[in-house]
């Protein structure tokens, strides 16, 4: 239900994800080539990452090209954007192409409303996060959570985040290398390494 829905912390204004998928028994037959075209348009308009929740990210499949080449009908694909300008460009391209797959944008609602207006789109349905409940004393601190919550499936482990922070502090890697390392376990490719690098820079400077 949630995937990209519980991102918290800093630099959310530089963090947008587009998800594209068909609906089973409605428009999934022949969706593979269309999903590929959506991802190609995302890259043409400034997406910094793409991914396929069915077969894995560029590291798991070998390359971004493999992500495109291996797409199947019924895949759920994603593209990550670091600013509103590129997001609007992609949405305009999607509207013009009119390929008929379902498109969901994750990001700050007020910003997404403006982006939809610029692209000539109207919001249909929204999914809001009402946060974390239960035994929240078990949660790590916010500085870790803001990185962990960028992978909705929980693949970016707290231990890995701490190791990356320590490696940067020790001069063993740069913030960009650390951000890319944190992206790699996120099989859907929705982790935003641009935002992660900004956060890691703050945490290690």
């Amino acid at each position, binding site marked *: 239900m949630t995937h990209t829905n519980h991102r918290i912390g800093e630099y959310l204004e530089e963090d947008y994800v587009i998800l594209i998928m*068909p609906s089973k028994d409605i428009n999934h037959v022949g969706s593979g080539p269309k999903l590929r075209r959506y991802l190609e348009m995302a890259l043409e308009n400034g997406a910094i990452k793409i991914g396929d929740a069915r077969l894995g990210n560029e590291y798991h499949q070998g390359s971004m090209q493999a992500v495109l080449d291996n797409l199947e009908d019924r895949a759920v694909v994603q593209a990550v954007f670091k600013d509103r300008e590129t997001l609007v460009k992609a949405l305009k391209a999607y509207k013009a192409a009119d390929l008929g797959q379902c498109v969901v*944008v994750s990001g700050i609602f007020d910003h997404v409303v403006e982006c939809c207006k610029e692209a000539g789109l109207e919001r249909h349905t929204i*999914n*809001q*996060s*009402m946060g974390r409940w239960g035994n929240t004393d078990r949660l790590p601190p916010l500085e870790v959570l803001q990185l962990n919550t960028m992978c909705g499936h929980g693949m970016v482990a707290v231990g890995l985040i701490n190791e990356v922070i320590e490696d940067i502090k020790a001069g063993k890697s740069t913030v960009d290398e650390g951000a890319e390392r944190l992206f790699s376990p996120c099989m859907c490719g929705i982790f935003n390494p641009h935002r992660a690098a900004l956060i890691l820079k703050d945490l290690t400077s």
Partner: protein
Amino acid sequence: MQIDQELCTGCGQCVPYCPVNAIRLEDDISEIDFDECAECGNCLRMADCPVDAIYQQELTWPRTVRSILSDPLTIAEESGISGRGTEEMKTNECTGRFKLGAVGIGIEVGRCVTGARFYDVEKVAMAVAKLGVTFEKVNPTTSLMSDPATGKFKDDVLNEKVLSAILEFAIKPEQMPDLFDALKKVSGEIDAVFSLDVATRIAPDGSVPTDPYIQASGLWLAPNGKTNVGLGKPRYQEV
């Protein structure tokens, strides 16, 4: 998941990749706590074990539940898609699943970080079942219930540990206060964390029908979330 103790050289590369801290170095050998492992596959995919000591043992019932609800690349039979959830609001313009006047609820037990045993998932499910909800049928978590009317799960899955299990159902907006009360109460009765999602069809005037109920509750609401921009075709024809 398991680590071949004869092959492991104790380099520790796999340890930080485990989302539930189930891998530990004991006497310079990596070992997976089999009861704590959620079978997410992250260590096998990511640790790049130099001696290929990590291996996937045969998964049999009820341990198969762990993989379905933890490994993002496992495709659930019920939903037909990878991941733990369903199409939910992502395809709402085509399915009409959440119509005006309905509120889609997602309660993801175990997310984030803590993971969850089904003992806790059941407590949350039984708390909300008292509101008379109908759990989403194509959700893999629902299929593990022995009695969806009460939220009771099959006894043999109760000790299974997963990264998260999602309870999905729809309610009317006016039921939201009762839902919040039920969730506040059960929050103090479980060891896991859960996240709460509220999905809503945007009204024709552009307003969000759930906003008054959330504002009246005084509960925290994120400034960010998901927006379906209505490009899917064919469109569900609303009456």
